[in-house]
């Protein structure tokens, strides 16, 4: 029980020492963000333009949405490597549905199903992960490795490895639409963050989630439905990954099962960790994940805009992940 309250204090009510630490940690992310912004303003040509903002928001949204889900999973001391594969799977299903005979005959119903079925399948992937992890006690890394590889395989089998191109303005709205002049998916990411934040801080599920991550045994002994909570976390993560997969497909007006969500698990883990998630569990800084996603996106953009090759950017990303985790480990000790 004491652990339970401790974890909730970390997240909720401010306490002297903890709030100082938290302030530092939050500022750490923001300081990093400000440095990147300043660097770009000085050195990157055409950085301070609406177009740049636009591009970055439309790209950061998918990272942010997946990172929110990853944060929820990491809060249970778990990890989900299958997010990218789930994106590919959801992204492959949608065009298959609205381009099918049925989908073209009944466009409206077809569109609804083209959203509903991929997201349902994504949620089922999360259920698969969650059940294996909580009922069979298989490590999350190993469990999610199964879908990490075969999820994308299934997506490629479904599409026969072909690029599916389409023209469907109503579907593409989620990737190309604008609200108040800014990309739709940016708003969607914010909305989803608010919803998940509400779930984590204001519902019983959220309390249990942090308790399970803080100390699983204590949570179990105090009557928390540990298994259900873990399954819930993986379902949320997979569902959000499904949404991100659909957005990527909508942005491109094409679905490529080989590329959709490729390496997304790394971006999402990096964003979650940079945003303050502890790999040992017990914390779920949802808006931190958004901050982390923005930092990751800006690092990518900075490297790209300054002519650094993609391959070198991979190495840079690897170093960011290691550093972020290292700093957190050091703080914890």
């Amino acid at each position, binding site marked *: 029980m004491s652990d339970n309250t401790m974890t909730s204090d970390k997240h909720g009510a401010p306490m002297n020492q903890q709030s100082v630490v938290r302030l530092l940690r939050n500022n750490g992310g923001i300081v990093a963000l400000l440095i990147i912004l300043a660097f770009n303003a000085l050195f990157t040509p055409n950085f301070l333009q609406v177009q740049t903002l636009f591009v970055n928001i439309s790209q950061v949204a998918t990272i942010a949405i997946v990172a929110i889900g990853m944060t929820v999973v990491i809060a249970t001391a778990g990890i989900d490597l299958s997010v990218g594969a789930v994106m590919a799977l959801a992204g492959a299903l949608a065009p298959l549905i609205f381009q099918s005979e049925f989908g073209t005959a009944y466009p409206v119903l077809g569109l609804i199903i083209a959203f509903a079925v991929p997201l349902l399948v994504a949620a089922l992937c999360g259920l698969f992960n969650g059940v294996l992890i909580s009922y069979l006690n298989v490590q999350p890394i190993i469990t999610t490795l199964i879908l990490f590889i075969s999820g994308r395989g299934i997506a*490629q089998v479904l599409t026969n490895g072909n690029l599916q191109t389409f023209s469907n303005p109503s579907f593409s709205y989620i990737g190309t639409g604008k609200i108040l002049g800014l990309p739709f998916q940016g708003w969607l990411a914010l909305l989803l963050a608010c919803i998940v934040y509400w779930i984590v801080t204001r519902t019983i599920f959220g309390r249990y989630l942090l308790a399970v991550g803080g100390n699983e045994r204590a949570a179990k002994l105090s009557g928390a439905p540990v298994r259900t909570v873990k399954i819930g976390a993986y379902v949320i993560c997979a569902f959000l990954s499904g949404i991100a997969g659909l957005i990527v497909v909508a942005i491109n007006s094409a679905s490529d099962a080989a590329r959709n969500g490729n390496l997304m698990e790394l971006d999402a883990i990096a964003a979650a960790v940079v945003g303050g998630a502890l790999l040992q569990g017990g914390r779920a800084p949802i808006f931190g994940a958004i901050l982390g996603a923005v930092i990751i996106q800006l690092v990518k953009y900075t490297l790209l805009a300054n002519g650094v090759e993609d391959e070198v950017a991979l190495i840079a990303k690897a170093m960011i992940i290691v550093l972020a985790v290292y700093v957190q480990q050091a703080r914890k000790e």
Partner: protein
Amino acid sequence: MPGTDAFDLRRYLRNDTRSAGVWIALVALILFGLARYENFGGAYNIVSFLNYNSLFIIISIGMCFVIMTGGIDLSVGSVAAFTSVVAAYLSPYGLEVALPGGVLAGIAFGAINAFCIIAMRIPPFIATLATMLAAKGGALVISGAQTISVDWGSNFTKLGMEKAFNILPWSIVIVALVAVALWIVLEHTSLGRTVLAIGGSEDASNLMGLKVTRAKAFVYLLSGGCAGLAGVFLASGFGAGQPLEGIGWELSAIASVVVGGTLLTGGLGSVPATVAGALLLGLVFNVLNFENGRGTISLSAYWQMVIRGGFLFVVILLQTRIGPSQKEVG
């Protein structure tokens, strides 16, 4: 300490029954293949099968040591891709330079993993995930994102293409030697025993004064070196350094290790059973290829990934059914 001995004995008996499963499955699948396909037992199939799977066997053995300590190495695939490029670049200097060069490059990545995990105390899967990324990036950078053709004039391609004493490919001979050496290390040296002890309980191993740090560093260096060797085989066997290869290899290796009865939480494992596991996984694909050839089924290359994941899934299901629960051991 009679109590501990009795406990260990029980474990080993259990271990044997777990390993028995993979040997039985292996023999059954071989018999099935022999009965069903004409060319299955032919020299060509056997040699090409062993040659191709020597890559996975060697990576699986390295992975087995890492998993026995309760760790994981997700970087093996891209490290192998990286070292295949290194070996291709070194191939003009001959096998005697390219082989150690490739292995050393792999060990270097293993050293990065060991440093991150031991000194920086970063969880193994994060550290090796980052190395996976770095090795992939590195391979693309040094190769300019091109496959690098090896020097056909030197003796480098002998390794993957010619046979030792006209019987077996060199690659499989080397893998067999390495496997036997590591088997002895695991079963008969204090280093090997420490590896298993760490997986049983790292804290207890520390308290008992075992050289935990040394053993942990060893397994990651070993896994890197094994991946390095696999990369050399890759370059030699296919005549090119391939920066984009290695995707999903870590999964194959993990599956092979687990099907060999090694507990994912560490503390239990066997080198021969891991080799059997790698052979079994390879044989599943071999049999599927034959079925494809007969036209009874038609599976595209994409099915390979699905089957690989499915195989791991089945293995995990079996392990949780037969074996002690992970909590009991962990």
